[in-house]
């Protein structure tokens, strides 16, 4: 890997870390397109419980990893929501870069060609 590529990667990672660590706190809290479709047809109480109607969400089952300390993009045990979301985001970027980059690095073809 050349030094120039290293700088580019470092810059890109910094942008990703800022987006996931800081900007993520300003993201919309509304359900996304799929989730909104899944809720359509049901009525909800103030605390989000389904009170009636028919919608996809009624059939939703518990997530297998719902107990994960990072579930729902927060870190369990950190009460400050900004810190919790931000750190969960930063961790996610690093883990994704580490695992993704690591797997791709192992998969790459090893030709002696100069980069």
């Amino acid at each position: 890997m050349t030094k120039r590529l290293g700088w580019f990667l470092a810059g890109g990672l910094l942008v990703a870390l800022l987006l996931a660590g800081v900007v993520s706190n300003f993201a919309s809290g509304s359900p996304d397109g799929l989730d909104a479709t899944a809720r359509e047809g049901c009525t909800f109480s103030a605390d989000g419980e389904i009170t009636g109607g028919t919608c996809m969400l009624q059939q939703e089952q518990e997530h297998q990893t719902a107990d994960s300390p990072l579930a729902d993009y927060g870190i369990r045990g950190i009460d400050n929501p900004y810190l919790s979301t931000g750190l969960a985001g930063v961790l996610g970027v690093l883990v994704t870069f580490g695992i993704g980059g690591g797997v791709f690095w192992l998969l790459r073809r090893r030709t002696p060609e100069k980069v």
Partner: protein
Amino acid sequence: MDTQAMHIANGIVNGTVSAIFAAFAALALAFCVWRARADLDDRLAPMAGLVAAFIFAVQMLNFQVLPGVSGHLLGGTLAVVLVGPWVGALCVSTVLIIQCLLYADGGLTALGLNITNMAILGTAAGYLLVAGLLRVLPKTPSGLGATALIASVIGVVVASQGFVFEYWLGGTTQLSLPWVSGTMAGTHALIGIGEGLIAATTVATVARVRPDLVYALRRFRKPPAVVPAAPATVSGGTA
């Protein structure tokens, strides 16, 4: 904090159909790994790691598209432009797997459905459009941005219809299919515009800073000007 489910949760599509798509996704990813190896070199491999990390970050940034409805980037087209279709599908899959296992986003049973829609269908549609559009649009940062914008909108709508297809096969509720299809297409057309703007900004920026790192531009790059006689200086450092 609001709990956010961003991908298909468990139980929305029945177990049999989920299992079929899990098998399909596994086969498709195996094929992508096989094809990706030809593309991955010392430069593309770390770049692909960055693209995956970037997609993870941007998927956290839900933007409002309608009152009470938000959306986030899926990332297929962005990945296709920067690292190519095979590696790109693997980038999006990496993100989905990490989100599912660590962040409880997108059911484990539904992982095959989510990978099929976002990593395979969305990416494939994005790739076909990018390949087609770059034949006619200028191979400049702005041309590449316009390509990413258009391909993103259509790629996201195609991905949303992947869900509709899966719901048609194994949905656990009895909702009108045209309604599901229309609602998904409508919201995802808007989400696609948001995704397109993010993808366009990103790829145009990379094309400006390091055009040599943009996979989609590789085919069009002129080979470095050949100096006929004198092989005197071997250019080293600069890529």
